[in-house]
């Protein structure tokens, strides 16, 4: 006989679900609105999404307050886990989304924004990511991951270019393989421990003192492969440049931030306990993975001819850089991860937005890609402000102080130093130097070359509207003046990370 389910609503703690429910409701709302009256202007959907996300953000603030008071909250049969990591990453997810969504208000008309489904899918995707970070249940992570990914594939494809479809198919296929790996990895964990909750897996493994280390490693390998794909670690990165190139610049920028932070949080939950329990193998593999990823990505970025592809590789490199935080696994490094990613969001979103505003409807004549370096040649002559801002983002990405990303880099390297990873710290530092080259390349094109004849006039802002400019303005201010807010940010992040036990 089954005993009657006797669960009080209170103990379910449904509040924990609210941040995810808001975008879902928003998405449904958009679909409903479309049902009643289709052919609405995209601005309406943009603003609706913005509103929804703002509410979501407000609720996150709320739960941040709760966390500061009560610490980690579990909910919904202990499936939901609202700890500092969850809240911080949701801030990044929702914040970046807020910055992204106005980018739909372009001057040129693009196919995807005409569909309300775009916005609905977008909101579903956010909910997916939020689920991913706010749980330590492998099932829910999987569900969140796939919800988000499937939505994302569709968003990419909606850009409606040959390359977009190609990108979507590639991403999709590899994503499916990664999902296979994920489920296989989960399955091994489940087989080993009889649980799909990370903290229980951890305690069971610790209890039997990692007796089946071989099988644990197999599970870890598949998890690594799966998250390696999401985080575009070499050699699981191959989709990244193609997908970034195929999707619209704005979405590419978004992709370089949001899915990754979600994956980072899961990786943190999943791998750090293993490293701390002394699984040397994982440490070694992560070490190698981090070094290879940032180095090779940097090297490939050197030889790119297209700015967007260059930025794609640069994102891979940055992800590798940040992956080091998980390897180091101290409170400082985990805080550094979030700090870095927050600062990175501003800069990277800014730089992709700069590409977005220069996006023409069709491929420029004689060009094989939308954002070749040639397009930016001599930009300072035609549009000094655009050139300066773009240069600013490049400098920030390169890690030139006092721009935003420098502080992230600095703190991350410092965490390597304090964590005892001196050589790693040096490698990270020198990689920044290598990376400097390709960021400079764009600056060289913009500031030191003459405009290429034949690329008609000033294309730097053909796609610009007020809202796009506002986003870029926000990113610019964030990039320049990050150091003013850094102290608060650092304290905030550290407290959240520390109180979550990382």
């Amino acid at each position: 006989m089954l005993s009657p389910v006797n669960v009080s609503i209170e103990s379910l703690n449904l509040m924990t679900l609210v941040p995810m429910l808001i975008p879902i409701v928003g998405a449904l709302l958009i679909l409903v609105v479309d049902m009643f009256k289709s052919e609405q202007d995209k601005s309406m959907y943009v603003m609706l999404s913005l509103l929804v996300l703002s509410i979501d953000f407000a609720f996150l603030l709320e739960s941040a307050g709760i966390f500061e008071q009560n610490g980690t909250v579990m909910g919904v049969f202990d499936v939901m886990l609202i700890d500092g990591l969850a809240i911080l990453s949701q801030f990044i997810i929702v914040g970046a989304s807020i910055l992204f969504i106005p980018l739909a208000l372009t001057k040129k008309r693009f196919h995807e924004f005409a569909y309300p489904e775009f916005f609905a899918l977008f909101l579903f995707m956010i909910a997916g990511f939020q689920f991913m970070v706010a749980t330590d249940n492998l099932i829910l992570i999987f569900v969140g991951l796939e919800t988000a990914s499937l939505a994302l594939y569709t968003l990419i494809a909606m850009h409606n270019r040959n390359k977009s479809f190609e990108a979507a198919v590639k991403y999709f296929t590899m994503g499916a393989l990664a999902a296979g790996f994920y489920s296989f990895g989960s399955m091994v964990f489940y087989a080993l421990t009889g649980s799909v909750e990370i903290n229980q897996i951890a305690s069971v493994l610790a209890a039997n003192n990692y007796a089946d280390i071989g099988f644990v490693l197999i599970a870890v390998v598949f998890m690594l492969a799966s998250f390696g794909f999401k985080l575009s670690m070499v050699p699981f990165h191959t989709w990244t440049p193609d997908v970034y190139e195929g999707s619209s610049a704005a979405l590419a920028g978004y992709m370089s931030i949001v899915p990754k932070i979600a994956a980072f949080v899961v990786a943190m939950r999943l791998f750090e306990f293993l490293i701390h329990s002394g699984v040397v193998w994982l440490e070694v593999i992560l070490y190698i993975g981090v070094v290879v990823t940032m180095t090779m990505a940097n090297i490939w970025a050197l030889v790119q001819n297209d700015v967007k592809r260059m930025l794609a590789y640069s994102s891979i490199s940055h992800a590798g850089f940040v992956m080091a935080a998980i390897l180091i696994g101290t409170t400082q490094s985990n805080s550094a991860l979030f700090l870095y990613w927050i600062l990175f969001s501003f800069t990277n979103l800014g730089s992709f937005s700069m590409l977005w505003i220069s996006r023409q409807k069709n491929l420029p004549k004689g060009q094989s890609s939308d954002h070749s370096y040639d397009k930016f040649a001599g930009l300072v002559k035609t549009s000094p402000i655009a050139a300066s801002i773009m240069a600013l983002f490049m400098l920030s990405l390169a890690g030139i102080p006092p721009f935003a990303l420098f502080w992230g880099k600095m703190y991350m390297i410092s965490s390597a130093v304090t964590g005892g990873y001196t050589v790693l710290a040096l490698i990270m530092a020198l990689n920044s130097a290598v990376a400097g080259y390709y960021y400079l390349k764009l600056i060289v094109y913009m500031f030191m070359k003459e405009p290429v004849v034949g690329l008609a006039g000033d294309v730097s802002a053909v796609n610009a509207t007020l809202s796009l400019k506002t986003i870029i303005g926000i990113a610019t201010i964030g990039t320049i003046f990050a150091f003013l807010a850094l102290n608060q940010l650092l304290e905030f992040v550290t407290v959240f990370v520390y109180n979550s036990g990382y």
Partner: protein
Amino acid sequence: MLDHILSILVFFPALAALLGFVVHKDSMRSYGVAVAAIEFALALWLWFAFDNNVSGMQFMETIALIPTFGINYIVGVDGISLFIIILASFFTMIGIASLTDTKDVKNMIITLLFLQMTMVGVFVALDAMVFYVFWELSLVPMLYIIGAWGGPLRIYASVKFFLYTFAGSLVMLVGMLFMAYFYYQATGQWSFAILDWYRLILPESFQLWLFVAFFIGFAIKVPMFPFHTWLPYAHGQAPTIGSVILAAILLKMGTYAFIRFSLPLFPDASVFFMFPIAILAIIMIIYTAMVAYAQKDIKQVVAYSSVSHMGVIIIGTFALNVEGISGSIFLMIAHGVVSGALFLLVGVIYDRRHTKLMSEFGGLASVMPRFATIFGIMMMASVGMPLTINFVGEFLSLLGFYQQSHILTLLAGIAIIVGAIYMLAAYKKMFFGEVTKEENKNLPDVNKRELIALVPLVIITIWLGIYPKPVLGPINTSVEAVVQLMHEKAITEEAKSRIPSLDIIINKASAKEVQ
């Protein structure tokens, strides 16, 4: 006002640069000169208000920036940095005043003003991270200046300059982070404040590693052999103003940093590495002087000569005694003035003939006598003629190092021979002989604008050569404090003996005053 004078010195040019975007391009030059003149006046005021008898930092300001991580905006000035700051503002002023480029003057001047901010910032920063910020930031305007207004290889040169220095300073950054971590371990508090770090006594093995980390950053900037190859390209391709600022100020960042960081933080490591570094410096002196002799391009001669002279500065710095360090700081200023002037002079001739190949000239002494005279004076200053500014620095640097090693000083002293060889040879090629080229026959002599820039330099060159005291005095006061600190901090026997204790010196000095 004086409480914030350093911040004003740092950020006034930046503000002016931002406002400069609004200024019409025809008026930009006057605007730039005016701003630079105000900045220079402020710098002079700083000097005026500076208390020569205080060895520590003056006009200090502290603003919390990232207190959690121990990063604060701390600025201050002592005798070591004071004159380099004045020099920076001075060179920016005459650089803008003598600007002859006509292309995108507005961008140029705005860039220069930003550059000035970073230069002053480096020398006033008393927080390692703030120092690092300005240090790195200074690369950007220079990159643009070389890359946008330079010669045919300008992009290669500018990128090389940037990346090389950038790579070096990243290693230094790791060192800084380590240093802060050690401070954290020792005190439980994060701090990047240099003055805090001064209080930290590290075990020798750590000192060695950290010294190397800092060294890489500084050595590339200086640039020390074998890290010097970016410099000839940068100078060779840069426009006149770029070379002037690069030689006069930017290179000094490296040597200044040695004195600000390496010596007081790692006294034992400094002693440990004294001879290897001295040997590098000697190679730098002799080898680059030889390379300079082989050059065909006058600007390259001056560029390599810069490297060679920086070697003497390094030698002086690593003398680790008051004479040597004071001498090296003085030589920084001296070399700034002289090499800056030489680059300006090369610019003068380049503006007229659009070539820098010495073979294109010859016999200019009769065509441009005033030019030849000024060039001659500066050349003689460069080869270290007594009663010019350079001599004081070189003499003191070598004198100081003599205490540490006789034979190495003898080798380093070859500087005065090889320096004369390439300089005189270059001068002969350009100014002596018959005027062979038709184009050179009617070259106009230096004009008023150029004289405005050059004459003050000539005056400084000779004035400070005869009467270095106004500069040497404050330098000396601060350097004595540094040496004393090093002596106190030194842990190994060798370091204790190599770095003189100041008690003796101070006693003697007071005895002298009694007389």
